[in-house]
């Protein structure tokens, strides 16, 4: 599994950017668990479609639901391409 691409959703007033990431396949519980290596991961398993939220310091938030091929990325600081590269390593 890897991140195929992204599109910009919003350019926020606080300077952050919101993107939608596209995965090559629906994200599995195993891939979600792998995110833990890069930041603080919260996983809500009781929801109809389990929700995950990854927070990396003050710079990055990634959120989505299991079995979805997209996720929402909020980038407060940093480079999106570098983060996608980091995600692809985690998903390998």
């Amino acid at each position, binding site marked *: 599994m890897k991140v195929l691409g992204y599109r910009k959703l919003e350019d926020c007033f606080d300077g952050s950017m919101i993107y939608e990431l596209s995965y090559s396949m629906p994200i599995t519980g195993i891939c979600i668990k792998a995110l833990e290596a890069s930041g603080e991961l919260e996983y809500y398993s009781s929801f*109809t*479609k389990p929700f995950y939220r990854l927070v990396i310091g003050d710079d990055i938030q990634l959120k989505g*639901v299991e079995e979805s091929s997209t996720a929402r990325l909020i980038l407060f600081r940093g480079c999106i391409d570098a983060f996608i590269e980091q995600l692809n390593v985690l998903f390998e």
Partner: protein
Amino acid sequence: MIYLNNAATSYPKPDLVLEVTGRCISGVPGQQNRGGVASAQYDMESCRRRFAEFFGVSGKGGMVFTPGATQSLNTLIFGMIKPGMKVVTTVTEHNSVLRPLYRLQDEGLIGLEIIGCDSGGHIDIDALYQAVKEGASTAVINHVSNVTGAVQNIAGIKDICFESGVELIIDASQSCGHVPLDELSDGTCAFAFTGHKGLFGLQGSGGLFLPGGKDCRPFIYGGTGSRSDLRGQPDQLPAKLEAGTGNLPGAVSVATGMDWISSEGQEKIFSNGQSLRELLLQELSRVKNLRIYGSETGKNFSDLVSFNINGFTADDLAFVLENSFGIITRAGLHCAPLIHKALETGPDGAVRVSFSAFNTESNVLELAEALRNVASSEALK
């Protein structure tokens, strides 16, 4: 998918609106004083008559088409308010009111007073009275808050304003199709409305009403299809405030939405909205860690509710509702920052749920179940 974001844009539209609007788009364009076909099935003037009939203001002033409430409010604010005036408005207003007024204030053209509201979003009538006594000459006030659903006491507001000769501009964006419009039907105050919310029309459609005898400078200048020899806009309504070719499919969609509302029965629609709101409040009262903004019941609220759940930002909660449970809501400040500040919802705002005639009790129960799930959940870390 359950759609509960009707205060932003209503969905779905009634089949009648889709059918009639589709026929309008595919048909020969009607006349707009611009050489259209006189025999065309749809035309702006019949829509104008239906708009006026719906609001009960036929013959009481000018009904003007606009691309929506924002342009209507800008037209009324920049057109009716003159330099040197003192204007009173409220913390419950949308940015489509606040930003034009701030602009006039920042340019030093007007004095501006913004009055507060109670915990349900009902404005402080005593503060309005005081502002009027202290020399306000125009009041700009919304009919229904887009954050709490508070229905303002327009009759009382009119009494205060008109007793002192104060002009009143009402933002009816959230009231049309959701609450009775009787207090607008005497044609004594200017009002702005949009077509794509409770009236079930297309985005980019709306209008304004200007009472007879009231002056409003044009906001947009250009062709009217009449008196093309004049250097300026014709002085007569609606041409004075309607430069450019109008949005006929939009006007037809709104007029058809009004027809649909009338045929369904406005009382039935309002009553359904009230029942859904009351059921939701009842259900939410059993959800732990949830705070409602404006939790009172009764007819001085429209059919929308805003809330937050501890541990989730409004944005995350709306994301979860949409992506984990298939329920569309709206998070944020709802373009109404001052009421969020007054209600202390926090920098991220709140989640708003807003109904239409197409929502049902089972939609409410599903939402409540989802919220109970979220509020009682614990993250695995």
